[in-house]
């Protein structure tokens, strides 16, 4: 037989061997922790009774005497425990930002904790990967979710551990912004901490405003005047789009709820003391629809559905559009558009849209962090989590790589905390946010405080309102139905009380 050719019998045998090997490997128990013993020589102090002859009154006598001496002994002991490896899956940012996170967070933590090794894994679409892993009873030690609605599902399923003892040990309640801490408390127990916080503001082209002599609107009348001035000059008052990210519509919905219906009413509706079908909410959605129908957003509803995010920022940066209602996560991306156009951007807080309604900053958390209930190293994971929150300077150093648009952990910052050279417009926001929300003037964002099904309905079906297929009243009525269902199922995320 040609030695280079494999016989059929050999081929079958090899296949069978490989299959057996694969099955055996798949069935092998997972090694959770390796127990290592070692033998060491130790010195031991022992007590001995020795007989000694002493002379008493000229007569030798034998007496027993207890003496201590040191002996060497070889014993078997447990070897020093191996390092606890803490896995932490993180939504993948750009390469440069990963380097900053690794250097400022992971490396400093590992250097300060010789017995713990923090492993960061940057993953695209971390939520979907994590869901599968958690459902399979695996997953990382530190669990990241996209927001409060998502973590609630893990809490209900018992996949994440309560953090109350860790919170007490590390003093998280005192360190975090109160509302941000409360957003992770479910059924009286803390389960998650926000990795980032954000809010909604109105970005605008400052160069254009100065050239046209437009001022910053502080109430509905001034905003209406500004919109009219924009339209008269053939400039789109606002630019926005939902083509790349359909949920973008909910950014606007929250703004109209908070600034037309009012944050107090939103709170009451969230805790069941008001109905979403009440006039304030229906009118808020009708006003938003009216602005869309008049082409105030990106020129037309069709363009709102078709332009890209880059298109809308370019339009504002070039003065074709005046403003953009958007989230503070845009701090990280807005700069290059204005650098290219040579114009200047700034922001202002959204003015009230109805008399008697206070302007507020909407509260929003981005990702949340929890500890896997199945983690073998929950204490060590707690230490790794604390490392994100226990030093403002370090936290801001990480966040500065995102121009404070992401990884902005909710601590009580002052202007002095920010690194030298930080964009003053960014500092102004965070200082003002702390001041305004600190006196209780805050609103709510749908992606942080609404249950999942109702939230998806809000951003998905508002398109039907824009298309004229549904009235604002019908839209609110359906939202109420879904909300009631989710209240009954205990799916409403915690809502910070108003004070």
């Amino acid at each position, binding site marked *: 037989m040609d030695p280079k050719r494999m016989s059929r019998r050999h081929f*079958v045998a090899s*296949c*069978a061997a490989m*299959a057996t090997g694969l099955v055996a490997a798949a069935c092998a128990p997972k090694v959770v922790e390796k127990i290592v013993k070692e033998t060491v020589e130790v010195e031991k102090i022992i007590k001995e009774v020795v007989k000694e002859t002493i002379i008493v009154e000229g007569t030798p006598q034998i007496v027993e005497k207890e003496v201590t001496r040191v002996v060497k002994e070889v014993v078997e002991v447990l070897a020093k425990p191996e390092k606890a490896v803490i896995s932490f899956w993180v939504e993948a940012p750009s390469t440069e930002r990963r380097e900053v996170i690794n250097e400022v967070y992971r490396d400093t933590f590992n250097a300060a904790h010789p017995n713990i090794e923090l492993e960061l894994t940057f993953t695209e679409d971390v939520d*979907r990967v994590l*869901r599968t892993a*958690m*459902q399979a009873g695996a997953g990382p030690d530190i669990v990241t979710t996209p927001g409060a609605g998502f973590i609630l*599902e*893990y809490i*209900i*399923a*018992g*996949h994440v551990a309560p953090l109350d003892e860790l919170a007490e040990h590390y003093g998280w309640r005192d360190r975090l912004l109160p509302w941000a801490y409360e957003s992770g408390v479910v059924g009286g127990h803390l389960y998650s901490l926000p990795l980032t916080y954000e809010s909604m503001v109105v970005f605008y082209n400052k160069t254009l405003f100065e050239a046209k002599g437009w001022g910053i609107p502080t109430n509905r009348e001034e905003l209406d005047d500004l919109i009219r001035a924009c339209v008269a000059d053939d400039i789109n008052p606002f630019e926005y789009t*939902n*083509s790349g990210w*359909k949920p973008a519509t909910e950014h606007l919905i929250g703004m109209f709820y908070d600034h037309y219906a009012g944050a107090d009413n939103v709170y009451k509706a969230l805790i069941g003391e008001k109905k979403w079908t009440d006039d304030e909410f229906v009118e808020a959605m009708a006003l938003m629809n009216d602005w869309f129908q008049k082409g105030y957003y990106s020129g*037309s*509803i*069709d*363009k*709102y*559905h*078709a*332009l*890209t995010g880059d*298109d809308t920022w370019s339009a504002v940066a070039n003065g074709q559009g005046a403003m953009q209602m958007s989230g503070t996560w845009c701090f990280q991306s807005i700069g290059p558009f204005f650098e290219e156009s040579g114009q200047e951007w700034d922001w202002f807080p959204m003015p009230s849209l109805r008399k008697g309604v206070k302007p507020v900053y909407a509260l929003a958390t981005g990702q949340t962090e929890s500890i896997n209930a199945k983690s073998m190293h929950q204490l060590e994971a707690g230490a790794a989590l604390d490392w994100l929150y226990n030093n403002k300077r370090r936290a801001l150093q990480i966040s500065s790589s995102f121009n404070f648009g992401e990884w902005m952990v909710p601590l009580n910052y002052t202007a002095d905390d920010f690194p030298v050279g930080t964009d003053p417009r960014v500092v102004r926001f965070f200082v003002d946010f702390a001041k305004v929300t600190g006196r209780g003037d805050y609103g709510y964002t749908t992606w942080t405080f609404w249950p*999942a*099904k109702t939230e*998806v309905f809000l951003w*998905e079906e508002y*398109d*039907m309102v*824009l*298309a004229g*297929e549904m009235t604002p009243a019908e839209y609110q009525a359906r939202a109420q139905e879904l909300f009631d269902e989710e209240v009954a199922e205990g799916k409403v995320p915690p809502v910070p009380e108003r004070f």
Partner: protein
Amino acid sequence: MRDRSLQASYELKERTRQRVWRKVILPWLFVAPLLLLNVVVILGPSAGSAYYAFTKWSGIGPAQWVGLANFRRLAGDRVYHMAFVNNVKWTLIFLTVPVTMGLLGSALLAPIKKGQMFFRIAYFVPYVIASVVNTQIWRNILHPTRGIGVMLAERGLKFMDVTFLGSRGTVLYTIAFVDMWHWWGFLVVLYLAAMQAINPQLYEAARIEGATRGQEFRYVTLPGILPTLVFTVLMTIIWSFLVFDYIYLLTQGGPAHASEVLSTELFKSAFFRFEVGYAAAIGVSMSFICTLVVAGFVILRRRGWEI
């Protein structure tokens, strides 16, 4: 004598053993790896999906058995109906436009002897470009402020000033156009290969009988490529009900569900609304539709259709 009988018995046993090994065990051993893979990767998840279709399950934690509740909900779900209608429209578009273009293209290309390879490659290239790249190219071409529509409108064709991907009236057809752009060239190459397998003597005979090009196509080419044609029709129907990538990449089913199809609705149910049980029910309904199509073809074959 006894020795010979023992010998014969031993040989019979050995022959039987060898026959069992060769006819029963060996074939199973050969298919075993693929079978194992199928059970793990296809049969297991399929059975899982079928089970979860009868449950209320968020995708996290335990599932709760709800019987036919998800299917009853499907029957009254307005968005599901819109998605189903869009899938039907999509199927009709793909059964007519690219198939006709593919047949036409291959029929025109078949007689060409010189440079045929160039055309084959040119038609085939869009098919091998990733859908993410294709959609990005067309997103730019169809851009509402600097795309081809605006350019043509500026040159007098005012009716072309359309927001192709933003208007409810045009969005589904626009995405279908983009998908067809990459798909029809593949059909050309497929039909061309089938046409080249037809016996040239049949064409000669047809010409001697005075057949025109149209008659050649009708009476020689079409019957010759019928199995390929039917296969592509079958696959087109099945793929049309599974379409996801082009729609999700371009519009995610919007605006206002105008380009929603069953797979995008399934995706949103599972990953945005935490309704994995309901999403599984949508998936089962899609599989049911595809099974009906395949069963239809099987019945036609059994009735003697040469397909």
